[in-house]
């Protein structure tokens, strides 16, 4: 796919290791933002952004509400908030009910990004042990987004990617090693 306007990556258990492997291999002139929604405990925000920023030359930062979404930047969703995207390409945070027992919920961000970016959105769902993200992929598919899922056989926890593959037509099933190269082709 060409003309990607945003890549949203969702993950739960076992996804952090994937990001640690993928980030160092990403081109540093990516013409789109990467938005990462990852389940984790409350209050570990800055640690995660700090950790990931050591793995890439791209700017890694935790989302600030109403912040403008820029290319060449990796945004981490803060713990305990849902992340929504406004039509003017700014972020909004939301402290409403958990979705799939999760806040942030991957579904919420996939759905919101799909409405804003449509066919120019790429969604990638990684390792995890629940079904958060699957409904979001279905919505994103309906809006014409490109759908990618980590190859369950290379995922630490295969349940989430396997559920996605069973529920939605997936454009690419990517092994952990293939993810970075794929993202670089979106540029």
């Amino acid at each position, binding site marked *: 796919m060409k003309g990607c306007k945003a890549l949203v990556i969702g993950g739960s258990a076992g996804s952090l290791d994937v990001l640690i492997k993928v980030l160092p291999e990403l081109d540093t002139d990516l013409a789109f933002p990467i938005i990462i929604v990852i389940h984790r405990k409350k*209050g570990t925000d800055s640690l995660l952004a700090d950790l990931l920023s050591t793995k890439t030359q791209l700017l890694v930062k935790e989302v*600030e*509400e*109403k912040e403008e979404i820029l290319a060449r930047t990796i945004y981490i969703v*803060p713990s*305990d*908030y849902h992340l*929504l*995207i*406004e*039509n003017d390409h700014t972020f*909004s*945070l*939301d*402290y*409403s*009910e958990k979705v799939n027992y999760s806040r942030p919920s991957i579904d*919420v961000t996939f759905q*919101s990004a799909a*409405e804003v970016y449509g066919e120019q959105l790429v969604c990638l769902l990684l390792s995890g042990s629940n079904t958060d993200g699957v409904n979001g992929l279905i919505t994103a*598919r*309906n*809006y014409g987004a490109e759908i990618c899922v980590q190859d369950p056989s290379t995922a630490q926890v295969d349940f989430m990617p396997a559920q996605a593959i069973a529920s939605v037509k997936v454009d690419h099933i990517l092994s952990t090693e293939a993810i970075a190269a794929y993202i670089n082709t979106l540029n």
Partner: protein
Amino acid sequence: MPTLSAITDEQVEILIGDVLEQYGYDFTGYSRASLKRRLIRLYTLDKQVSFAEFRYKICKDSVYFRRFVEQITVNVTEMFRDPSFYKALRHKVLPNLATYPFIRVWLAGCSTGEEAYSMAILLKELNLLHKSLIYATDINPTVLEKAAQGMFPLGHMKQYSENYIESGGTQEFSSYYSASYSLAKFDSELKAKLIFSTHNLVSDHSFNEFQLILCRNVLIYFDRDLQFKVLTLFDNSLEKLGYLALGTKETTDFSPISKRYKRLETEKIWRKINE
């Protein structure tokens, strides 16, 4: 054509216009992504079949409109949420208010009251409750009715108790309530210092001067212009050397009031240093 969202951006604008005209509730400054999501949620929850019927019901049925306000505003809250925040109140903020003969606190967007009762507990433990009043306000009358009852699900008490201890609480948390079936009923001594009242941050004015204003996780639902307007309202309602507390991801930075405020190091608490 695949099924896309149940309510379009244009329909969101139509509803915002309707409720402003019919009821005087002004949602024009609300963040659209969140508002749209809440509208779709309500539409789905209530098994609405068409936008036209949904719209008609909101406009013509005032009972349903009350539900509309209750459901499109976010009312998720807990006691002693963000324990480190309450720790900062306990150790760095409230001791500085202890010398005042009378302490007025405004809790804006109090929802079902969990933060108001947390605040009352904190003031009691610092021996300040007897000379304090907490004005807890919300746009939504339904949640205020719940708040005034001071009863919360007993099942939540374990989490609240953990939050309380982490925030520096020194008492037995269960000493503040009595269990009644599935509910925890909080002491009337706490309730006596709470005043619950409707207040719409968008359209209502300042109603008193306070030493402490808390408004946490409300501004995130507003666009920048409305955020600045509400921060100005807080500024006009806060005494010099008073404190303003916002949510973990909210800030006074870039706003017209920022130069008069100095932030406490780690928490989202600012002190008004100039008039």
